[in-house]
């Protein structure tokens, strides 16, 4: 079993939000005093000039955040993530959703042949795609947003170049049909 301080640090790290001593104590099923003691030690650990992560305290809540002085670089990073050029895999994913959406994550992954979790998250944050309103399915399906359509300068997807041919292409359909077969084989 790892040290208590290590567990508290892990919790603060994954939570990505302010946590009360009470909450931490409850998760670990220990005394609040013990948590408070360890948090003091953690504060000391993060309280150095060179640390890029700091432990913030507001009233009785604690949160790990990026060092405030690095806000500019951190924001610059986020900004390039959400407004810079799309990478080739991102562009391809957006293409598949544009021409063949709405599609679920497993369908998109079947077509592209690679895991798309991070890419879908990025496209969602950028506001290029959104979850389609599908009531029947358990899995969310993705489609492009109205804003992106406007950016493309088309009023509906059917106006995309060669939509008729590409929208219902047999290679795509064949690949999608292999989902069941493929998962049985491995």
């Amino acid at each position, binding site marked *: 079993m790892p040290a208590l301080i290590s567990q508290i640090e892990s919790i603060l790290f994954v939570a990505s939000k302010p946590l009360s001593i009470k909450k931490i104590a409850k998760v670990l099923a220990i005394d609040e005093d013990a948590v408070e003691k360890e948090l003091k030690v953690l504060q000391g650990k993060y309280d150095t000039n060179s640390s890029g992560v700091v432990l913030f305290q507001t009233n009785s809540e604690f949160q790990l955040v990026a060092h405030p002085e690095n806000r500019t670089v951190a924001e610059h990073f986020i900004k390039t993530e959400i407004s810079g050029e799309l990478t080739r895999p991102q562009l391809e994913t957006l*293409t598949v959703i544009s021409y063949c959406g709405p599609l679920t994550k497993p369908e998109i992954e079947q077509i592209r042949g690679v895991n798309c979790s991070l890419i879908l998250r990025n496209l969602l944050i*950028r506001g290029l795609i959104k979850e389609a309103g599908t009531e029947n399915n358990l899995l969310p399906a993705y489609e492009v947003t109205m804003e992106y359509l406007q950016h*493309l300068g088309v009023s509906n997807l059917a106006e995309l170049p060669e939509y008729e041919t590409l929208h219902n292409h047999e290679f795509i359909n064949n690949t999608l049909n292999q989902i069941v077969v493929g998962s049985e084989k491995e």
Partner: protein
Amino acid sequence: MPKELKLEKFEGPLDLLLQLIENEKLAITDVSLSDVTDQFFQFLSGMDENRSDELADFLVIATRLVYIKSRQLLPYLYPPEEEGLSLSEQLKFYKRYADASKFVEKLWGEGKMAYGRVEPAPVLTGFTAPQNATAVELKNSFVLLLKRLKPINPLPEVRIDHTVSVQQKIKSIYESLKKLNQLSFKDIFNSDSNRSEVIVSFLALLELLKQEKISVNQKNSFNDMMINKV
């Protein structure tokens, strides 16, 4: 006759070879490979129909086994130095990683997990269009994707042949020779119904030659070879 073998499910030709050799408690050498060649062919002929995808891989190894075996039997026919990695070296190499996969299996099964954090998504002030991703770029990207998805022409179908063992073949050739004293090389292969049987017949001849039970003569290049009982 080789003993009845019970093997764990084998994954590929190298896995099968490794299991055969380990089953006989042999070290990985050319000699031991040569010893399990018969068994390898037996498994090849008994292989599940729905594994036809892997057949080519098994045949590649099968031909290398035949090569090793014939070299063992008739070393003077082969140049001493050889190019590339020998099958036994390749098998040893494979074994290192097959063994190491147990480390990975153990770690995977321990149920540890190092979670990353999820930074709360930034609240966007309006939609920021990417600098690329125009309609034309989408189309080009789709065309590239279709190129990748285009099915490759399926390989011609291959059937796994039923094979007799080298031992059986040696016996049958020797029996025929006892009756007829002489056989032609062509005679021997005429009765073979498929390619694996031809390979087996050839191995049987080599073995008989090595045991000095037969002699082979050929008058001119490309003439039929005559096989005599010694």
